[in-house]
């Protein structure tokens, strides 16, 4: 995987993770272009599209779009389930996760992602093992915000 972006329906970037070296300028350009492309798509359209020489796999959960860029030989469906597993992890950690959780606890969202994917590859698919790593850290200093949830992601 080359990168993963989370953005809202209004086009606000909520999380960005880059697994290939790019300049800040390129990152901003790619983000702008992709957010626009994905938001322009209609609900029933397929979750995959060709973009430059990459394949984009995206899925919307409530108000948030999860969007991954993978290479030509990568598997689209399993990437779709990478997104879903990540959402499940967030959900399990925050309890009915919603966009606000990710805004207010963005650092946690990054930590969870790092336990799940590293260098663009799946590192650990067991929900238990990923969360164990995160909970361990929380035990050391328990600080977490639970913003009022507006729209939890639906499963």
């Amino acid at each position: 995987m080359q990168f993963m972006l989370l953005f809202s329906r209004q086009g606000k970037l909520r999380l960005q993770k880059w697994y290939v070296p790019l300049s800040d300028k390129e990152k901003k350009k790619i983000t702008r272009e992709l957010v626009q492309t994905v938001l322009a798509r209609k609900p029933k359209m397929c979750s995959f599209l060709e973009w430059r020489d990459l394949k984009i796999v995206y899925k919307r959960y409530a108000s948030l779009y999860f969007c991954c860029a993978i290479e030509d030989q990568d598997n689209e469906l399993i990437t779709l389930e990478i997104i879903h597993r990540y959402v499940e992890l967030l959900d399990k950690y925050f309890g009915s996760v919603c966009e606000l959780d990710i805004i207010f606890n963005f650092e946690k969202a990054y930590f969870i992602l790092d336990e799940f994917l590293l260098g663009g590859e799946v590192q650990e698919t067991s929900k238990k093992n990923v969360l164990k790593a995160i909970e361990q850290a929380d035990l050391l200093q328990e600080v977490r915000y639970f913003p009022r949830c507006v729209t939890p992601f639906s499963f």
Partner: protein
Amino acid sequence: MPAVSKGDGMRGLAVFISDIRNCKSKEAEIKRINKELANIRSKFKGDKALDGYSKKKYVCKLLFIFLLGHDIDFGHMEAVNLLSSNKYTEKQIGYLFISVLVNSNSELIRLINNAIKNDLASRNPTFMCLALHCIANVGSREMGEAFAADIPRILVAGDSMDSVKQSAALCLLRLYKASPDLVPMGEWTARVVHLLNDQHMGVVTAAVSLITCLCKKNPDDFKTCISLAVSRLSRIVSSASTDLQDYTYYFVPAPWLSVKLLRLLQCYPPPEDAAVKGRLVECLETVLNKAQEPPKSKKVQHSNAKNAILFETISLIIHYDSEPNLLVRACNQLGQFLQHRETNLRYLALESMCTLASSEFSHEAVKTHIDTVINALKTERDVSVRQRAADLLYAMCDRSNAKQIVSEMLRYLETADYAIREEIVLKVAILAEKYAVDYSWYVDTILNLIRIAGDYVSEEVWYRVLQIVTNRDDVQGYAAKTVFEALQAPACHENMVKVGGYILGEFGNLIAGDPRSSPPVQFSLLHSKFHLCSVATRALLLSTYIKFINLFPETKATIQGVLRAGSQLRNADVELQQRAVEYLTLSSVASTDVLATVLEEMPPFPERESSILAKLKRKKGPGAASALDDGRRDPSSNDINGGVEPTPSTVSTPSPSADLLGLRAAPPPAAPPASAGAGNLLVDVFDGPAAQPSLGPTPEEAFLRFVCKNNGVLFENQLLQIGVKSEFRQNLGRMYLFYGNKTSVQFQNFSPTVVHPGDLQTHILSLAVQTKRVAAQVDGGAQVQQVLNIECLRDFLTPPLLSVRFRYGGAPQALTLKLPVTINKFFQPTEMAAQDFFQRWKQLSLPQQEAQKIFKANHPMDAEVTKAKLLGFGSALLDNVDPNPENFVGAGIIQTKALQVGCLLRLEPNAQAQMYRLTLRTSKESVSRHLCELLAQQF
């Protein structure tokens, strides 16, 4: 303001985030951010030492501000300080900041690396993982230099925790991708392969990704992974849906690991060991069988995970391309998906079938789905799915269904999205040409293309139709009649005017007998479009008019009137003005005979790869056929009529290489004016040209330059210049030699001959060279052209020789040159995927099949220049094959009449040492060595 659950931890951060969210405008947000930045700056600069918690909070705020899209230029030092905190969460935030906001400040890098080193040595698995995550996230060369040697050790150490092993594996993968040279292969590689046997599924999951990447470069070192991967896969595939506990995902056992294992196997050819192969085939069959079972859950996650494995299995089956039974089953399975209610599955099925269509075993099976695919093209609501359908139709097209597919694609074109029209046009044009049974159908199709999507018909497409019509006399009359009819439409596309103008200019006489298309009618029809057209088209029409004067003398007066009009003779555009003036003069001065010679019908074009195909390749992927483009820069010089400039030397023989199709057309090397002074001349008379130093490069240097290019000056001295233009296709070549007399005195008894000494030595004819005689006299300042037709019968090592003899001022002159015909000219570039390349590379592993040279760079080491040279050498350049992006990998086939020689090459520049290593593998020893020698002299 959200509620805080426990403690008051980073309350300040939450307040700040709320404030930002409450900002009503961008300005208010920026104001709030600036306030915060000032606050943090003062805290960082203040006298009071900050405690770890505050540092963490402020660093986190900075990170948030950066992620909002603002620049951050401080705080790095505080983040680095956090790295050495022994509080986990402080360390964690420090690492996150460094990962997101790396800065190549060398002072900082040293500190960061130090902190990482400490954490890696800490034996605290959570700290070690944080450090490894950071290296993997940054992945810079500096990090690689500092840690690439340590990580393999951590990875295979017996006492490393599972989670550390997982992070170490993927960390190493990232470093290897960034700088493969920094990761030393060694004893650890064998132990990494054995991680496939690890009890911990997470470790296996991480390790497979690493192995998949490493084995691409060192397939032999990792070969043992095949049997391990197969047995692991087999255990997963045959396990019950709950066996793997937390690694089961919606009743699918270990889908991510399964997909990765199937990917790994695609790096290798089918297993050689029969037992392993049997087991694998069993796995693949099991996956195909499971696809037919009723789903264990209605959730889309279940079917996605299951189908992810299925599609990867099909990819492997296609990769092997050796099991007809599995291929046909795969095709049937995809056929079911073509009508699935899930758009995603329809999309993927269309995509996957495209590759199946190219296998000889499944091509016919794919074709049976033609109606479904056509229906998809018509009814899919999502443009990306329609695009896949169009791709698949293109891939499944052959002679049997071409008419149906082309007509469907034409129909689709009328409503197609603008974004993909050009590609569809190219595809239709290619299919129409490739599978044309009768050429009238081909002409109709292209004219339909122009009618339906004229704006998207690129010049390659309409050049091509002209080329084909010119070369096939059985279609010329039909073409003339059809364009004549098409031009009668009240509004027709300018491309139609171009094609019509050209065809009527060449073949209008074939329909002139019909009073409805008599010459004056043809002329007035064309001229009625003239004023609406662009300059380029008008220039073309002017050429048509002068051809009309030749074809139909009765139109002469009318056309001269048009040319004479002020709007032409004083046209602001130089090209139009010049054409009008010259054509008018030509038509009044030249006799009918001269006119007929000058405006003779265009000779057939040499056969070569369709430039449309080249264009499609270019559109589809970078690196494909990029050199084909260079002749098409100047719109006036590549006008379709080669014989428009009435200078005697070019008009009398309309150059067959006049650029109709974007041939690499440099103007023939012009003879510079004779400038030799009397003194020089005297020397010249006494010293034959062969004896005196030539101007510029030595003949040997000049010869070497032609290895990677086809046009240029081969030889030059005070008397004579010899220019070369050549083109090669498959095992045939045509070479134009231009002999320029640089003096003001006539050369006499001028006789160039070509011999091939290689033949004399071996008594086997390897090159057949046909030459045409040239005139025995070459006037002072004049240039004559000689055409050579070359056929490569078998591979050869020595080039043919050109010997030129003539008398200059009574003194005999003689020189002998190597003709720039080298074996690589008969290269046919071949595109292939990485795995195919490596498979072939391995097949050519006999020591005598390989030739290698390590040599010093003689020219500056510029990647672009190297690329151009390799393309000029004739091989295809393959991207994404060599894991080191600095290296070049190429492939091609040497075409001779007797045999074809597959060639693979790899060039590894070492900028530091200013050296190259060049490796050639071909199926023939002498060819490997010879190509290696030729190419090594180019850099």
